[in-house]
């Protein structure tokens, strides 16, 4: 049977008669009146897929494996979250994997220089779906303290899910960012920052040819957002 995925919550507003139809079907289900294909569709849409989605999202969000990716000062504060005061093991995220193949969260901690950007992108590409990225600190989210020739903001070359501001952000702030990401994964895996990249789930949509703008870097510099 073909499984139809349905958006959880969010999405386009539901027309009122759509709701009425669903209400009637629910009533029929409770009465035991749904038969045949109707019943199959109902079960797929409501019971199995939804609960399954939720269970998978719950499992994924509570067992994120961050990749060890410390670049600069923010890396020291990232090491602090593994340390005893802000203990990331409480949430299950203490298993930092060195290999990108085994990791599913990339915490970009530190300033990304132009020499490092292709390396970061390559590491990000080597990670398996589903994967998320947190831009930790001011330097990776925007250019941070250094608005100059040598730094690249992370949004320019890879999709980022959560930006954590700070220079460096306190370990508690980074924890807040990670927990926000966890909430995002649990509740609305299709929504969030990635919507801007035209992604499906966590998969990035890469344009088929070079003439289109890349899905990443959706920010067209608008005229009145002159830099800091």
């Amino acid at each position: 049977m073909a499984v139809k995925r349905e958006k959880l919550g969010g999405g386009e507003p539901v027309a009122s008669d759509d709701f009425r139809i669903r209400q009637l079907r629910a009533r029929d289900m409770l009465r035991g009146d749904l038969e045949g294909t109707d019943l199959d569709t109902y079960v797929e849409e409501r019971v199995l897929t939804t609960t399954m989605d939720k269970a998978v999202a719950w499992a994924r969000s509570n067992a994120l494996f961050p990749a060890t990716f410390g670049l600069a000062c923010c890396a020291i504060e990232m090491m602090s979250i593994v340390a005893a005061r802000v203990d990331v093991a409480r949430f299950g995220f203490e298993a930092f994997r060195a290999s990108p193949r085994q990791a599913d969260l990339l915490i970009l901690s530190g300033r990304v220089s132009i020499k490092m950007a292709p390396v970061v992108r390559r590491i990000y590409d080597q990670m398996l779906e589903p994967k998320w990225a947190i831009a930790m600190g001011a330097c990776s989210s925007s250019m941070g303290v250094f608005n100059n020739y040598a730094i690249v903001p992370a949004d320019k070359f890879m999709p980022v899910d959560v930006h954590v501001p700070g220079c460096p952000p306190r370990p508690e702030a980074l924890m807040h960012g990670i927990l926000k990401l966890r909430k995002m994964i649990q509740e609305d895996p299709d929504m969030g920052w990635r919507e801007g990249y035209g992604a499906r789930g966590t998969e990035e949509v890469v344009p088929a040819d070079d003439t289109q703008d890349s899905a990443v870097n959706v920010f067209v510099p608008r005229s009145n957002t002159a830099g800091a």
Partner: protein
Amino acid sequence: MSSTDVTRSGASEYRQMEESITMAPVERLGTDELDQELLTLNMGPHHPATHGVLRLLVTLDGEVVRDLKPIIGYVHTGIEKTAEDKSYWKAIPVIERMDYLAYYFNAMAFCGATETLLEVEVPPRAQYLRVIHLELNRIMSHLVWLGTSALDLGAMSMFWYCFRDRETILDLFEYSSGQRMHTRYIQVGGVADDLPDGWERKCREFCADMPSRVDQYNDLLANNEIVLQRLRGVCPLAESELLKLGVTGPLLRAAGNPWDLRKAMPYSSYEHFDFDIPVGTVGDNWDRFAVRVQEIKESVKIIVQALDGLPEGPWITDDRKVALPPRHELATSMEALIHHFKLVTEGFRVPPGEVYYPIESPRGELACFVRSDGSSKPARVHMRDPSFVNLQATAPMTEGSYIADLIATLAMLDPVLGGIDR
């Protein structure tokens, strides 16, 4: 723009990049019937054991390292160029983010250079406060080094112990300046603010605890057979070689040369304090380890002496043309308001000249070169970072040793890539 481009063949871009790196002439080994080939291994820039984004091109003969070429620049931030764009006061936070484990030292070198140019005097209380915070930073840097080095060697629990003490120090920093890292506490002419109530008591509690903690760390590691085997006698380098390579700091002291700028050319009233300089004998990894651990204890001694002898007085120079006036004066004095305005918008003008101000950072001689052309922005700021120079010693140290020894040596070298790449 450059007229000296390296000639390029028609290979792909990536291969072209590789071509420009010439390996040292290491001959192909062919003894007896076995024809051995050398393997070039690329370690990094993303690697859990390279203390940051350091890329090493290692030429291996089996597991033995024959040659090593470090490639850096992966966290180059253009700090020196950014500092030219900002006034002296506003450049301090930028300079601080260079060597990100020794941020007080970066600020101290820059402020010291600027004060030398301005010929402004730092009040004695400010000097003592600077010393206290610098030594706390030194302890913190050595703790991070100890935790991450033990992690590299496999002794994972040290990481948590060291970071626990680091949290206490960061609490002290947060209490005195408001920020955990990159605190912008050391300003031109003194320090940003006086110590709050209760800071001294907390600091003394920390200093009372720390020597016994260091002893505990020693008990954990120093008598451990595995740690001893991995560090004792591994990758020594003679003192003359180190001096030729310009290596300073704990690496040089481990080889037997007691060169420490705090004792040799004291700055900021270090001459008032009585402390020892731990010196090694052989210059192998074990000595580097022991020297740094002992330095933590010496720093605690300095902090206690500084707290005991902390003089009263202003914490920043009285020269209103350099330091911001206290805020309560702005309501009553017109000159204070004008000074405040000028300092915040344009900044103070520094007389033209060039100054090189060296201090002793946890990794060696950290110096700041400032060239001023008479305006309110520095014309050139260069940080002579110790890790940048110390990195050149990696290749001579690790030649002929195993990869595992290479990892241990890198850990004992304590490179901080922020300082190397600036």
